[in-house]
């Protein structure tokens, strides 16, 4: 397997929330051209938007990084969306606990519905972003916390490459 053989992009942000939607449109086009599947592109664009918006919103220093990797695995593509920021200990703990709870639930859609019900009256933050990525974007989510409050959140999935995508790669 060649790493990122289908493409990658990496972007750095200062505190500019208005750029998140600009990035969603940009990466949506990137996914379209790489994977040639509008439904997959839509799911991945949603996940990218949610992760990046959270990374920017909850960054202690207003900075955030986004990296997207698309690599081939036989007739499948592996897509990894990674955000990195400096989070408060409280926010990092919240994300870790949420992901642990989410991964302990056997059905992403039932878990999502449960989170929707529980958070209907919540006033601080939606509490829905990670569950939305897990259920609507059909992606596995993980988090790593490192030195200096660095928090890395990864959403990843495998998708089957269709004929058009294989053709772009020169395989079909």
């Amino acid at each position, binding site marked *: 397997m060649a790493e990122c053989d289908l493409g990658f992009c990496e972007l750095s942000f200062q505190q500019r*929330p*208005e750029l*998140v*939607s600009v990035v*969603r449109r940009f990466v949506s086009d990137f996914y379209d051209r790489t994977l040639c599947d*509008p*439904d997959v592109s*839509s*799911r991945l*664009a*949603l996940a990218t*938007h*949610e992760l990046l*918006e959270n990374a*920017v*919103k909850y960054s202690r220093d207003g900075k955030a990084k986004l990296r997207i990797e698309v690599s081939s695995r036989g007739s499948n593509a592996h897509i990894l969306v990674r955000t990195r920021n400096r989070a408060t200990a409280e926010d990092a703990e919240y994300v870790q606990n949420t992901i642990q709870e989410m991964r302990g639930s056997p059905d992403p*859609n039932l878990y*999502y*519905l449960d989170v*929707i*019900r529980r*958070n*209907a*009256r*919540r006033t601080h*933050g*939606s*509490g*829905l*972003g990670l569950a*939305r990525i897990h*259920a*609507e974007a059909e992606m596995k989510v993980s988090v790593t916390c490192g030195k200096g409050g660095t928090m890395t959140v990864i959403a990843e999935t495998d998708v089957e490459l269709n004929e058009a995508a294989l053709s772009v790669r020169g395989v079909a």
Partner: protein
Amino acid sequence: MPPIQSAELKAVVEAIDRGLLVRLVGTADLRVTDTVEQLLTSVHQQATAGQVSEVRVDLRDLEFMNSSCFKSFVTWISQVQELPESGQYRIRFMSNPKILWQRRSLNALSCFAAHLVTIEAAAN
């Protein structure tokens, strides 16, 4: 309520036959979270005061909605659920099949309140 005219989101609320029509155009993201919440609070107040039977929400030109704005819809629907049954009104979402996130997100709202929420797929 006066129309919302920001660079990223436009919203209009109109009275229609026995109900209200809410039309959202553009992008509902981090920049307009409070605006969407206030809009839906106002819509709920108008709907209950006017004893309407249905509120239509036209999302056919809504390019994207983030989870914070989506949550405002969840809160609104839960407020309708908490009304006495005789005071509850239905919420009909008009979606665009070409905007693919809408199918999954609106399906989640429909599962949350199947008795109140209807999804209508209709391209422009």
